């Protein structure tokens, strides 16, 4: 039935030859553009690869020539990551308050921890304690 309807439709419809010509032009330009877009994109992919490799090599070089090593034999506190510093400040704070209730402790923790992640959400970022810590964190990501 569907086929019959279709044939009938093709018969009855007398589409303007002009319209068909327009359709053909559109199709050629459309198909041409699709190919142009994807050909150029496919040609750009090796460039992307080379850019990425370039960056990597530079990074490796920088690391080697840099004075700051990352083997963890740093000068102590400077090697600390953000969360570690939070933990330490919290511990000190807890000590001063002579906190002995776990619940209080938890509250204090929250107070410290929150700002690190959630405010970023509202459009605010981390502050990096120092460069070494920053690099380390970034790499472990």
């Amino acid at each position, binding site marked *: 039935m569907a086929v019959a309807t279709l044939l009938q439709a*093709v018969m009855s419809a007398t589409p303007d030859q002009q319209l068909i010509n327009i359709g053909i032009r559109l*199709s050629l330009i*459309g198909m041409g553009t699709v190919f142009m877009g*994807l050909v150029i*994109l*496919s040609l750009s*992919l090796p460039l992307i690869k080379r850019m990425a490799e370039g960056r990597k090599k530079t990074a490796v070089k920088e690391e080697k020539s840099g004075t700051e090593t990352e083997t963890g034999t740093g000068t102590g506190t400077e090697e600390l990551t953000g969360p570690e510093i939070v933990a330490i400040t919290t511990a000190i704070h807890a000590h001063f308050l002579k906190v002995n209730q776990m619940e209080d402790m938890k509250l204090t923790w929250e107070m410290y921890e929150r700002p690190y992640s959630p405010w970023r959400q509202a459009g605010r970022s981390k502050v990096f304690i120092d460069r070494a810590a920053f690099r380390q964190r970034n790499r472990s990501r």
Partner: protein
Amino acid sequence: MTLATRLLTALTANSGELNINDISFASYLGDSGFGQLEYGNLIMIVMGIVMIYLAIKKDYEPLLLIPIGFGIIAGNMPYNPDLIPIGYLDTLGGQQSVFKMFYFGVSSGLFPPLIFLGIGAMTDFSALLSNPKLLLLGAAAQIGIFITLLGSLLLGFNIQEAAAIGIIGGADGPTAIFVASQMAPHLLGAIAIAAYSYMGLVPVIQPPIMRLLTTDEERRRKMKPTRHVSTTEKILFPVIAFFITAFIAPGAITLLGMLFFGNLLKESGVTKRLADSAQGSLNNIVVILLGFSVGTSTQARYFLTTDSIKIFVLGALSFAIATAGGLLFAKFMNLFLKGDNKLNPLVGAAGVSAVPDAARVVEVEGRKYDKSNHLLMHAMAPNVAGVIGSAIAAGVLLSMVPH
């Protein structure tokens, strides 16, 4: 009932006057399903139930067929539009129906880019990055779009309608909806349902064509393994790919912008929260409302037309042509490729998009002839390239065809 008459009736009815003689159980039943049911509504409701059945029982596109299916039922329940605004086009006494508000996301073109944002945030473009030349297969398969466009013109559709119908051949639901919403809003329901139905039926439509157009030797061919892709490449890709494709097809800025934006959120590594919501709750909410709205827009009086039948026939045609286009182009490329660089032409069939169904059909077919031949990975490249390709095609049509 003309719009004018309906407006008049509405204004009269809304005077707040209520005549006691108008209130009877009989007149109430006349305004309920008992008095308002039409034959066409029943057909559509059955169609909605079939969709829900296929989604649950056959697992065909459940995330879309269930919302669409239930939307079809809800959109075709009988009611008297002079009393309350319910349908997706109803406004009564200044009050829009809720379904109309939902449908705004479809008719305004707002939902498809949001879906693309989610798709971008969940797509891994590694396969494509490691197989640049396979991108061309994703381009070739778009031939389905343009041949369908011509076929639609032959069947008497105007140029805007033909463009919208053609995009069904892109095998990409949101793109089809986006183009139809701008070019031929009155056909949107039929186009959307055709697009999603055939995307669900890809495992049924493609295999015969794949067998017809390939030799046994070709189907058994193994391809070289793909290379590893670095994180930096994955970060650079969305930015550069967006620049190139949007430069060439500005009409696709909206769709491709959201696609690659979502992908950058995913790959940047510093916006995990945003990527999670883009492909999680935001995407789910939009999928629910989009599917349901498309369903409600199939009210029988507008949907059950010969135009819809034509669209379904053209849609099936377009999927077949797109599949053939990808396959044959792979064979054409093989004329220029040597040794183990030669492609398994089956991979070309994945160029139709319908991600990841088409790619998995390739895997299944390939393994039928050689159990150790795994083509899935290779097929993913033309598969995602097909999404970009149909977005470009959509962009060209949107900017060349006045609408």
